[in-house]
């Protein structure tokens, strides 16, 4: 409170009249300034004052507030009852039939199948460790203090470690072919690797689309428009079903690899358009200034254009990342056991089939955790990238 306005000199907003619900916040400060908090317990009344100013200040707001409260009253208690209070947390499916709420025991019984699919049961600590390692490294890579050259070394070691854990075949670990992998590792690896490979590819595509060389430009435009013109399901279907038909009999490319390639190319096409948006937002003067300094094409691109362009397009890029993460659930059409497919399979057991809603709520929660983290991280990254820029 460095500056206090007398009540009659409250700052009057200029420009268009703000919507009604803004008004409260404009008036709030002067009101408080004119009546400083008193020591006789008036502070306890402050929430009422706030509610009166913000929630019941006009007849419309009063009606809306009451309607929202009624809706919450209708939704929250039954939801809480179903989700938590009356839920059955352990035991058999018979216990669930008795319970009035959700049957979380289905998760207790099926969580290994949902998380790890058909990976050999006794070895499932391996994908667990691999996932933990992977998520930890992803988290660490987001922290600014760790952006050092050794992070690349750490990643290389992590990937080797994950390979050893998942495949085995060395150091006394039994060999597990990747057609037995499933669940969370598949979802994580497909999304992270397709994003990691698609991102640099998309930058090249976006640059290529703006290139003055007709061959490169035509190729990039053709690729992007073809990929954007078909649904991801068709791309996966082509990669997994049609592609092997063109190979000689007996020659097969790994199914997981084919799906990964399909997803990567698809994501790259969409990302390329987001990046192109950033490239076009850079003022022409920046390009010209770089040319005037005598920078080569790559110097200009890497030092001047991309740092500015990528910063602008963080929101659409993260949007695409989140979308790619969720799209991994489409690989069920090519017979891969991602997290959602494994969850679906868990519900085919007739004993637990009535509790499919619980299984899907759980799978949804898993997806939400990852997508929400990505979204929060991008907001932080945006603030970091824009800290010297006023927008």
């Amino acid at each position, binding site marked *: 409170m460095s500056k206090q306005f007398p009540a009659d000199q409250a700052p009057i907003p200029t420009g268009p009249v703000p919507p009604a619900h803004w008004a409260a916040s404009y008036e709030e400060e002067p009101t408080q300034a004119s009546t400083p908090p008193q020591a006789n317990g008036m502070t306890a009344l402050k929430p009422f004052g706030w509610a009166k100013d913000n929630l019941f200040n006009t007849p419309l707001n009063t009606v809306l507030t009451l309607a929202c409260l009624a809706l919450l009253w209708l939704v929250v208690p039954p939801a809480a009852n179903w989700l938590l209070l009356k839920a059955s947390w352990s035991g058999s499916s*018979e216990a669930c039939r008795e319970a009035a709420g959700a049957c979380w025991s289905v998760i207790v019984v099926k969580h290994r199948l949902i998380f790890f699919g058909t990976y050999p*049961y006794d070895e499932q600590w391996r994908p667990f460790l691999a996932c933990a390692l992977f998520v930890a490294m992803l988290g660490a890579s987001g922290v600014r203090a760790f952006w050092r050259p050794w992070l690349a070394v750490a990643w290389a070691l992590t990937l080797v470690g994950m390979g050893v854990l998942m495949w085995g075949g060395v150091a006394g670990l039994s060999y597990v072919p990747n*057609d037995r992998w499933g669940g969370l590792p598949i979802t994580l690896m497909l999304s992270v690797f397709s994003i990691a490979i698609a991102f640099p590819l998309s930058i090249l595509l976006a640059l290529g689309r703006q290139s003055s060389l007709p061959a490169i430009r035509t190729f990039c435009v053709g690729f992007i428009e073809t990929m954007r013109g078909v649904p991801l399901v068709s791309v996966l279907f082509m990669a997994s*079903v049609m592609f092997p*038909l063109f190979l000689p009999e007996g020659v097969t490319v790994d*199914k997981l690899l084919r799906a990964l390639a399909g997803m990567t190319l698809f994501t790259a096409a969409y990302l390329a358009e987001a990046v192109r948006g950033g490239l076009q937002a850079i003022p022409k003067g920046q390009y010209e200034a770089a040319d005037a300094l005598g920078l080569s094409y790559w110097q200009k691109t890497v030092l001047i254009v991309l740092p500015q362009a990528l910063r602008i397009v963080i929101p659409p890029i993260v949007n695409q990342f989140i979308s790619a993460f969720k799209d991994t659930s489409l690989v069920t059409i090519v*017979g891969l056991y991602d997290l959602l497919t494994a969850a679906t399979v868990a519900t085919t057991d*007739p004993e637990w089939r009535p509790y499919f809603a619980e299984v899907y709520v759980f799978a949804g929660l898993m997806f939400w955790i990852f997508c929400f983290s990505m979204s929060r991280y991008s907001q932080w990254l945006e603030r970091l990238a824009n800290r010297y820029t006023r927008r």
Partner: protein
Amino acid sequence: MKSRLSALAIAATLSVSALALSGTAQAGATFDGVKQKGYVQCGVNLGLYGFSSPDDKGKWSGLDVDMCRAVAAAMFGDAEKVKYTPLSAQQRLPALQSGEIDILARNTTRTLTRDTANGLNFGPTNYFDGQGFMVSAKLGLKSAKQLNGATVCVLPGTTTEQNVSDYFRANKMTFKPVVIEKNEELNKAFFAGRCDALTSDASQLAAIRAAEVQNPNDYVILPELISKEPLSPAVRQGDEEWMNLVIWAFYAMVQAEEKGLTSENVDAAMTSPDPDVKRLLGVTAGNGKALGVEENWAFNIIKQVGNYAQSFERNVGTGSKLKMPRGQNALYTEGGMMYAPPMK
């Protein structure tokens, strides 16, 4: 979407027929290929309880899975030498055509067009499915012929609905359809007593019963099946040796049931004087050589996978949650259609 997929499937079919034509010279490619790599690559359902699904520990089991295990037992003497490729419905036929899998055991109905147009061949039916009726046990019904005047819960606009009206008309009976759009609602309506009978594929009825009812004996699946869904394993065209092995691996299980051989008593049966048993178990040599495998191939199947009855009861019958009756899947001697040609 559907038409797009079928267009793709046609394209796939065409390119495969081209491949198949050029590949006929090297008969036995699949047989030799499987022998060389040391395992059977088996295409299964992503998860269909009783037929092929991973259990809580991620281990595959089911009637279709047993088909693949039987082939592996015949080929390698080890039923565990199978790798499973879970396939979606759209993928299953191209996956077989492209050579990605050696055998397709994925609850696939054998039809003329599938058999001829797609460059594949079907083996013997390992499960006769078809549309049936489920009724409350309290009604005491024994046959679908007694359903005259019944109310029947049915999904609208499907062949299921058509089949029901055809069946009742053909048998000069009447029924009142209770048509409900959604599966879940339909099942609820039936168990709430809004209709006398629920109709769907028999295997589906058993799965619904297992999921919704505490005591499966309270509801009965009537023995009549009013549509044909012969679920059969399939192999690629152009390798008769491989096809023979798949066919006779299945028949060995049926023959074993007929002769009363189980995984428990098959060791003792090696000394049996019955000439059929002697030939089946390889005591009298010949069958193994004809198929190109060890003489004890059928012994290995029976020992490790069991006979057909054992496999049936364990996966879909009384030993499973589905509690399906044998019905058309009983031996021909017991009123079913399971029949193994002479194995000599």
